[in-house]
């Protein structure tokens, strides 16, 4: 049985980096958009999650000092696999991986009604209107320059909805079943 599943990696998610936090200060998303959103999907119960032992991240005892903290989870009912290595903390990666898994399951089950899909459409609309605004602004700038007026271009503001997207590197892969990461026998 071959299933299509998505493998997501959550590096550069921005969620834990100082960059991600400073981004949030440029909040411009109107609150009404947030209200239309379905609630963030909760992670599935632990009984539906299988965690892999990653040989690479494999602890090697005192003799070796590895820094790999990757966590890989598989949702058994859907076969969706996610991997997270954004932070040095396995505890935090484990939590983040569960959140991403919840999002992937939501997408898998609810398609274009999934929270992330709705967020994506809102962002698209917003960036389209921002483009329009930008074009208008530059047109105005041109006119101002021609007219000799001074104008400053504001920094690009980012919606706080951006944090919803973990910018996962997505890859469609098949359920490899037997050749999932192996531990030393």
């Amino acid at each position, binding site marked *: 049985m071959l299933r299509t599943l998505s493998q997501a990696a959550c590096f*550069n998610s921005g969620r834990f980096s*100082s960059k991600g936090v400073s981004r949030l200060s440029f909040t411009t998303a109107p609150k009404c958009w947030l209200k239309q959103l379905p609630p963030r999907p909760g992670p599935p119960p632990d009984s539906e999650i299988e965690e892999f032992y990653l040989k690479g991240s494999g*602890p090697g*005892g*005192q003799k*070796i000092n590895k820094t790999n*903290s990757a966590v890989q989870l598989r949702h058994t009912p859907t076969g969706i696999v996610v991997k997270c290595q954004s932070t*040095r903390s396995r505890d935090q990666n484990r939590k983040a991986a569960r959140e991403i898994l919840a999002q992937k399951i939501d997408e898998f089950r609810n398609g274009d009604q999934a929270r992330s899909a709705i967020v994506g459409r809102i962002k698209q609309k917003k960036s389209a209107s921002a483009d329009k605004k930008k074009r208008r602004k530059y047109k105005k700038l041109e006119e101002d320059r021609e007219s000799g007026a001074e104008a400053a271009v504001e920094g690009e503001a980012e919606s706080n909805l951006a944090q919803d997207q973990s910018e996962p590197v997505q890859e469609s892969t098949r359920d490899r079943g037997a050749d999932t990461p192996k*531990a*030393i026998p």
Partner: protein
Amino acid sequence: MSHLMIRPATSRLLRTLPLRRHSSLLRTNSSIPPNLALLLPTCKDLESARNELRWLREHVEKTTSPAKAPAVVTELCRQRGQGVPLQYILGTQPFGSLEILCRPNVLIPRAATESYTNHLLDLIISHNVIGPLDEIKESVNVIDVCTGTGCIPLQVFASLQRRNIMVDVKGVDVSPHALELAKDNLDHNVKQGNIASPREGQSIGFHKADVFRDDEMDIFSKPGQKTWHIMTSNPPYISEEVWSEDTGDVELSVRQHEPRLALVPERNLGDAPEGLERHDIFYSRLLDIAMELNPRILLLEIGDDAQALRVAEYCTRHPFCKSRIIELWRDCPDIKPDANEQTEIILESSDKDQGGFGRKVPIKGSGQLRAIYVQQPIESMDMGDRKIAC
């Protein structure tokens, strides 16, 4: 030009690959960004080099002015590439819910240690392995011998404290560097908000003692002393030979930068008892100490499969383990074993009481054998007022 030369096998591979992959394969070392290239000698693969570069950048962003940052990042990449442990460069290592300070002279906490500490806590909190916590009259008493940074007792303390459980935790080490750092780690994690300042009925402390000196260990086992619920230890367990030979068994970065005292049992500790090797010497001593302290649970980290079997077999003959449950735990004790991983083993016991039969020992989790767990059966625990029936 040499990087453009393609060996026959590779060129055959290239021909069969889609065009997109060609270019990425042809771009050899020359196209790897310089900072990543600096990290590669230590990180070995690009994925971990990218992760480390990101963590180094995040660290520099927080600690250096933007103008100086790029030069500092490059300098740190150079140090890391030469084998300086990332945790000594960044100054910390996450451990469970804590941020553990790391300094040269004290061993850096390992991932496996974190895994079994968390698993132990899960057993205590959710599976009553020291009995129902609300029935423990005094506090939960924990001793960690060979404590290093204090990572194990600090995580145990943080986790039990969060659940409003009365707890008394002690960490013991012979190294003044370790003791100082362990105390700093308590302060640091209180400041970070990972640990609340100890409330009434909760305490944690670090003590200087040499495991091999009766006079220094006696204070923990005075008659009339409280019940010890948990004793843990991650003692030095690498043999002199493996340490000094260039077998590649011990990572170069470990050998050059981490303290030998934490890793290799010293030469003058005497001969190991029958069945054990010289570098297993801490285990026979720790079992003798366990005899005195009588903890409900004893958890010992071990180095590899061979050592695990030697020590587990020794345990079956040691009076401390008589009528106690023995388990072997792998690197990740809470991850399902894969199809090739044995889930139990029969240890040949030379103990006459066992009637010459082997003793069946369960093996939990996935990975290499990493710890030996010895537990008093729950039904035989004296809970103070009454024996609990199961």
